């Protein structure tokens, strides 16, 4: 008798309506929110940023009060089409300004005084697979190593940087032979290792097969983010069972000469999103996909002496795609004259945003994933 866990992708997990997907884009390094969503009617903004402040004429107007960074042309277009919701002031109490600590807090979906060793999407996998098998490519990170966000208490998602390479690495004859008798190893740790091996080769087969189903005619930029979103697009359109995709872009850690770096990164992101959205639309999948962006913190209000900014706190999150209920600017940017030692005070706890996505988009119990109940928002 073949044990449950061996049956790989033969077993269908609870499907989401429309085979919908969530695409998480992590902006690594601390993206400067104030030069992303620009409060161009606020004098304090220009006083604090004499050199790096973005002029009203340069910004792309969103509302009377705010504009968007001019390098995000495509997002602006989508915004005008009513497909974008922008949540401002997202952060958490007692903010931590260390990259690795704050990123851990965001990825684990925890509070700054907790040390959690699992991630929110990993725990989503744990919960939605309760009692049944679900193959681990339900959540996929397009990278060679797996982020904390994707590691659950019991289940871990799959990390694939390059599909062909992953396939040839995981599917070599020797590994496949070893994994084929995985059921013989039930003892504790050996069992865990063989189970992981089996799930990996199974996932490699599945993802590789899926990637062959749809050969995209869409041109994606030849940048790292372009290639990663191409992988995501192809799998979504091939109707893969993957529910969550995770991709990183960066580094946005703009301590020096912020404009050059942020502009370039935004251009790359914008062009890649344009390709992805065009591809999804062509294939009628755009409404089934929700794209979200986040960063581990924003940056300080006042620029530093190197035409850059230092680590800050609250920042904005973008939501693009299907199911947007309240398009536009969801809430105000935090006040620039009521700062916490030079930093913005958060107005939305990121866990509320997670809760909303978990409850409404992924249709799961946000409370069990996040450990507590957070009041949701209504942008989707």
């Amino acid at each position, binding site marked *: 008798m073949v044990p449950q866990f061996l049956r790989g992708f033969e077993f269908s997990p609870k499907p989401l309506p429309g085979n919908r997907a969530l695409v998480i884009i992590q902006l*690594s*390094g601390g993206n400067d929110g104030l030069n992303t969503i620009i409060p161009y009617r606020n004098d304090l903004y220009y006083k604090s940023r004499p050199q790096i402040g973005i002029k009203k004429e340069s910004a792309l107007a969103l509302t009377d009060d705010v504009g968007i960074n001019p390098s995000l042309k495509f997002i602006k277009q989508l915004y005008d089409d009513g497909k974008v919701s922008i949540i401002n002031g997202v952060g958490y109490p007692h903010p931590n300004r*260390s*990259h*690795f*600590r704050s990123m*851990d807090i965001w990825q684990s979906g925890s509070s700054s005084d907790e*040390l959690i*060793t699992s991630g929110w999407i990993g725990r989503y996998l744990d919960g939605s697979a309760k009692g049944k098998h679900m193959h*681990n490519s339900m959540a996929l990170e397009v*990278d*060679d*190593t*797996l*982020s*904390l966000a994707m*590691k659950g208490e019991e289940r*871990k*998602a*799959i*990390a*694939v*940087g*390059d599909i062909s*390479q992953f396939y040839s*690495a*995981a599917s070599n*004859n*020797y*590994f496949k*032979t*070893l994994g084929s*008798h995985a059921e*013989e190893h039930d*003892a*504790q*740790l*050996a069992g*865990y*290792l*063989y189970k*992981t*091996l089996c*799930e*990996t080769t199974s*996932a490699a087969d599945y993802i590789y097969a899926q990637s062959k189903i749809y050969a995209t005619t869409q041109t994606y930029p030849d940048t*790292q983010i372009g290639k990663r979103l191409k992988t995501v697009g192809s799998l979504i359109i091939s109707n893969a069972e993957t529910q969550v995709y995770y991709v*990183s*872009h*960066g*580094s946005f*850690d703009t301590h*020096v*000469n912020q404009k*050059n*770096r942020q502009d*370039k*990164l935004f251009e*790359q992101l914008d062009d890649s999103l344009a390709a992805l959205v065009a591809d999804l639309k062509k294939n009628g999948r755009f409404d089934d996909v929700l794209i979200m962006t986040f960063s581990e913190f924003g940056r300080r209000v006042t620029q530093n002496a*190197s035409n850059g900014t230092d680590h800050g706190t609250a920042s904005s999150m973008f939501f693009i795609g299907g199911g947007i209920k309240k398009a536009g600017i969801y809430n105000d940017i935090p006040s620039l004259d009521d700062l916490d030692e030079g930093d913005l005070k958060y107005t939305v706890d990121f866990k509320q945003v997670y809760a909303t996505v978990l409850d409404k988009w992924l249709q799961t119990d946000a409370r069990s994933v996040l450990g507590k109940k957070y009041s949701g928002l209504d942008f989707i």
Partner: protein
Amino acid sequence: MDLQQKNKLLYTRAGFGISLNDFDNPQPIDKAVRGLFPKATPGRLEMITEEDWAENNPKALKSVVDEMQRKEMAKEFRERTRDMNLLWMQAMVSSDFPLLEKTTLFWHGHFATHLDNPYFDQKLLNELRTNALGNFGDLLRAVSKSPAMLQFLNNQQNKKQHPNENFAREVMELFTLGRGHYTEDDIKEAARAFTGWAFDEYGDFIFREKQHDDGEKKFLGKTGNFNGDDVLNIILEQKQTAIFITQKIYQYFVSDEKVNEKHVKELAHNFYKNNYAIDTLLHDIFTADWFYNDAVIGAKIKSPVELLVGYQRLLPMQFNNDKTIINLQRILGQYLFNPPNVAGWPGGTNWIDSSSLVIRMRLPEALFMSKELNLSLKETDAEMMGMHHNPVAIDTQAAKPFRVGKVDLDWSNYIAHWKQYKKEELPHALADYLLAKSISDRQFSEVCGFADNDSIDEYIKSLTILFMELPEYQLA
């Protein structure tokens, strides 16, 4: 369990694997265990001198007028933590007393710090190595007064009028008592006691009397004008500290998942009674009957550093690229001096996911047969910080491709040893030596099916690599 298997288990857990010599010449356990402990204090590991620090500390750097130059110097200095890393790895690989290094590695994760100051890292590492097998009280005091810990846990900001609780909290939550064995008030009072604990520009501990709150404090049920040393003593008086530390040590040396409460209780009781003598605790574990039990074999997953040091102790290797070992640590998730957070590395099954398992299984071919891994690394803080002064046409690639590069191996002694066996004996003999747990007959025939039969040398090499590629090789 026969004596050879007992020795194998002992040297695997108390070190980084058993040498061919020790495997062939197993000793009575009492004698083997005694031989684990060094007779002398270990020498210091020093890559960064006092002069280096004098030139590169924040105060000295401030006097460098050119901003670019200052940032360049700061970046170069930060990268010297990699030198420390390699130096320590080298010590682990070549040590005659691997128990010292393995235990230091444990304390390195237990007293985790994540700084960008290689001088402070070096000081803390040397305190850990000096006290690793000594007295936990001494170790705790040395760590608590190290500039690395004081800086990492913000005790420089802990002042009489504005106490900062971070240091007090982590000392109790992570380093000694564990959660649930103190109250928030205890933390506040302890923080008051630690006020004034700081370090000077030389990286030496100083006590700033003016910043010290010398009022009466109530801590863990006691009342008095406690200072930091008093607080540490009171913490050590709690049996819970012995229990907490013993449990962690048990998990590290005995079993990732199944913790035998009875054994831990007994060990903790003796640890407390022996005034926190770490060497005695370890001696108790390694001479216990229950340790040499089938249930203990394979009950641990090797940490990345264990795995990498193990390879190098097995076969002498020279890496053409210094960064190879560093990058392998990063890609496997254990980058020395860069723990994920102040709780260190969680370990156990946390080391293993779909990508890390496959990477571990591909490592033998990458290291021993120069096969490319074709992987990319996620960026670290240090790199993000280092990219500052590169204003024009930045390569904004977040992930960096990673090359193992050329590795020079010396198979000669290893092959000479195994040539003493008949060809048909080799699979079982090699498996006995390399693997913690035995494998089935079917697995043997599968492994042998992939072996290279061209010559006896190639047979030995390929079998070795095939066994090392088994998931079982990840178990200790």
